[in-house]
């Protein structure tokens, strides 16, 4: 009855046999396979061009500023809306003094100014750190090198928005900002070496130092010390609600979870800049979405992971790639005061067990360099451990599992070791792959490393700060993108360094670090920094690994987009680029 009622076809013809069902499933599987093949999913597809087997040894700066710096015939065109991916998540606050996160500092570069900033232009490597004036027209050091005087430009004005109303930016604003920075910024130790900042007149700022400090320009020009609007902070308590600066763009609004929006500052002090009328800096959490946005021209530019670069070049060869060396140093660290890592032979053995070439090939598309205690990206200061000048300690960077086994045996571990390897997935796939390469390398030297991944929040607030047990336990993780060798040395190796997670306290090394800090002659300082790198290669308090590039991808119509350095994209790169469409 029910069959009639419900109009079910005759069972003998309508019902599937098992064979038919299996055939159907087989066809469905084939269809799925074809769909995947047609989809050319970037993560599953072998690159058409195999990664270079031998990593390039970068004895010279290796960024490629010219690729996107091609200028169309004629002068830059003004106008247009620039839409880029800026961050995967919200900014914690709009006040750059209240949080040191890149999520806060990077947007600030669009709207605020600094005294000086890294120069960008044709042929200048992204990490060259050749400074030019931002608010400052000129600057000079005193004869005793204990004070620096900055002369402000005559034409600098705050954006024409209440309560600033376009008034001139004065030296008093700089001093006020410095004093507020010391009060509220978690980065205030950046100015520990400064004795005072004064404003003898409206256009002159004088910084007096407590001691000689070679990286002074670098510290003052880093994208942290923005000159802030006094009136806004006095009225609102901080600068988290209103963004009014003297930078290239005027802040329109921040939409939580969506992005930042702004327009051109017509009174910007760097004449002719910016070229685009409007900026839309979007928050896009998912990497696949960013890639799709680039392909669909929903985005004019975005930073792209190295693993996604080849598939993108294949599907969209017209895209421009602007690269800069990655100044990040993923290291192995441990407690150097406790066995087994208080024995230098064990530390050296671990370093010799790392296949840095394999790491470059696997993680960085075969391109990059071997970090020492200074990231290879800081090519001006980095001493190539594969070069002729490094000396005998260069051998500890070479992958040599047999020698590593001998060192371990000499240290009392003839049968190898079993250790825990702590890391975090919080830095993404790149660091996870580096961890896996390290684990494989250690195995070749007889060290069984049991990987234990910590959730990022747990990692950053415990292990990263050195709060972990010593003994048979190592940590693998990156440090921040420092742009000065002193930052690598002081923060990681000095007993007072806040990131000295290994617990290094080596009086000889401390003396070397403090000496180079006070050496203002560049050639002499470089020699000292070379010596420190050689010395640390022997000690291996932290075991440096290898790093590749950071890649910004732009649409073909984007012109004069130079390599970025740190968080200063909005002030250094974006004002110069223009849209040829």
């Amino acid at each position: 009855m029910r069959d009639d009622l419900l109009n079910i076809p005759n069972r003998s013809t309508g019902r599937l046999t098992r064979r038919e069902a299996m055939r159907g499933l087989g066809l469905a599987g084939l269809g799925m396979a074809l769909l995947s093949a047609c989809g050319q999913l970037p993560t599953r597809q072998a690159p058409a061009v195999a990664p270079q087997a031998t990593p390039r040894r970068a004895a010279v700066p290796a960024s490629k500023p010219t690729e996107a710096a091609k200028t169309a015939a004629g002068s830059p065109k003004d106008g247009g809306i620039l839409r880029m991916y800026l961050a995967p998540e919200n900014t914690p606050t709009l006040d750059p003094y209240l949080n040191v996160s890149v999520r806060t500092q990077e947007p600030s570069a669009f709207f605020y100014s600094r005294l000086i900033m890294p120069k960008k232009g044709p042929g200048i490597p992204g990490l060259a750190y050749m400074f030019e004036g931002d608010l400052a027209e000129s600057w000079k050091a005193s004869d005793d090198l204990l004070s620096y005087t900055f002369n402000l430009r005559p034409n600098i004005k705050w954006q024409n928005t209440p309560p600033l109303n376009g008034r001139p930016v004065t030296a008093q604003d700089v001093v006020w900002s410095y004093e507020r920075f010391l009060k509220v910024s978690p980065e205030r130790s950046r100015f520990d070496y400064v004795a005072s900042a004064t404003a003898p007149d409206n256009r002159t700022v004088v910084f007096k130092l407590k001691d000689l400090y070679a990286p002074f320009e670098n510290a003052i020009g880093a994208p942290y010390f923005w000159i802030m609007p006094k009136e806004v902070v006095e009225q609102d308590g901080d600068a988290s609600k209103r963004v009014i600066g003297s930078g290239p763009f005027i802040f329109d609004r921040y939409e939580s979870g969506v992005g930042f929006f702004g327009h051109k500052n017509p009174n910007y002090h760097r004449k002719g800049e910016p070229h685009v009328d409007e900026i839309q800096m979007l928050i896009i959490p998912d990497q696949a979405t960013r890639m799709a946005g680039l392909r669909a021209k929903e985005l004019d530019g975005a930073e792209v992971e190295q693993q996604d670069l080849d598939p993108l070049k294949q599907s969209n060869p017209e895209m421009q790639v602007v690269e800069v060396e990655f100044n990040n140093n993923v290291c192995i660290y441990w407690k150097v005061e406790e066995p087994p890592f208080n024995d230098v032979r064990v530390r050296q053995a671990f370093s010799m067990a790392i296949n840095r070439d394999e790491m470059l090939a696997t993680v960085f598309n075969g391109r990059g360099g071997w970090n020492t205690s200074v990231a290879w990206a800081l090519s001006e200061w980095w001493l190539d451990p594969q070069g002729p000048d490094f000396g005998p300690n260069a051998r500890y960077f070479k992958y040599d599992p047999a020698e590593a086994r001998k060192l371990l045996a000499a240290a009392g571990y003839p049968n190898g070791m079993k250790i825990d390897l702590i890391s975090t997935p919080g830095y993404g796939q790149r660091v996870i792959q580096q961890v896996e390469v390290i684990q494989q390398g250690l195995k070749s030297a007889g060290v069984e490393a049991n990987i234990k991944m910590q959730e990022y929040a747990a990692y950053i607030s415990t292990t990263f700060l050195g709060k972990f047990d010593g003994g048979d336990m190592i940590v693998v993780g990156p440090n921040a993108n420092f742009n000065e060798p002193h930052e690598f040395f002081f923060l990681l190796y000095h007993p007072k360094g806040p990131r000295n997670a290994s617990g290094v306290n080596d009086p000889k090394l401390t003396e070397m670090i403090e000496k180079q800090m006070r050496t203002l002659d560049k050639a002499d300082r470089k020699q000292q920094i070379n010596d420190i790198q050689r010395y640390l290669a022997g000690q291996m308090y932290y075991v440096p690994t290898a790093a590749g590039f950071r890649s910004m991808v732009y649409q073909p119509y984007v012109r004069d987009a130079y390599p970025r350095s740190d968080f200063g994209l909005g002030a250094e790169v974006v004002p110069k680029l223009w849209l040829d469409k």
Partner: protein
Amino acid sequence: MHPYLARRLLLVVPTLIGVTMVVFSLVRLLPGDAVSMLLQDYAYAKDADEMRARLGLDRPVYVQYFEWLGGVLQGNLGTSLRSNEPVTVEISNRMPVTAELGLMAIAIGLLIAVPVGVISAVRQDTRTDYVLRGVAIAMLAIPGFWLGTLVITLPSIWWQWTPPLRYTRLWDDPGKNLGQMIIPAIILGIALSGTVMRLTRAQMLEVLRQDYVRTASAKGLDERAVVFRHALRNAFIPVLTLLGLEVAIVVGGAVVVESVFALPGIGRYLLEGIQYRDYPVIQALNLIFATVIVLANLLVDLLYGWFDPRVRYS
């Protein structure tokens, strides 16, 4: 019904207080704390202690709890530790996005699942049934993030097209907003529809064998009337129960789908809150989710009576 409703509503209060206590305690048991996350790489001990005191996190946990609960009772869900902005404001900005996504997803899920479930039951053991059941299992098996990534990636490669990446609010431009929301809602709806479809089919098969269905048919009623008015209405009660539970799945799915489609909803806000140990955000959102789920299930219970007049509330 009114005493039943009053009793159920009264039970909501201890349930939600229990949720707040559990969430409040659990987030503080997680390794890592908000201050370390705020200071990240630069956590000098002195700065961390200062900030912990400034945020009031150095006080006993029970003091923090009762202070927060007092605020909640006055409509203040707390202040984000990370942004220093009121959580209530952020949630009110983001809630419409997730609510729109969730409602669209449930509607789409039902639009897919119920007809497919009915057809599958009515055509039991036919090719149609096998195909539809296969589709339902695929819908259950395919993770939303994978489907979302495919939907984002493949059109961008094939046709240089992707859904708009810049979110537009419904009241700013309804057409643009719907254009942006429809794909994520379909993906979320598909995830829901698999379970609902299978349950609908199973219930329909059972109901279609009941005597009253045969009687209705014997009376000469139209087939559609028998299926939809008599059979489906009774088969739908367990499906309704399932829908109440699926609200939780929508909330969970929203976390992923909002990230893939760059939608500024509360799912993403929760994710960021957890990543940064932003306690007030986690507490507030869990309280809201718990409230929504409890009320949705209460609504489902009340709807039983409408679907089946035999159900009595006592």
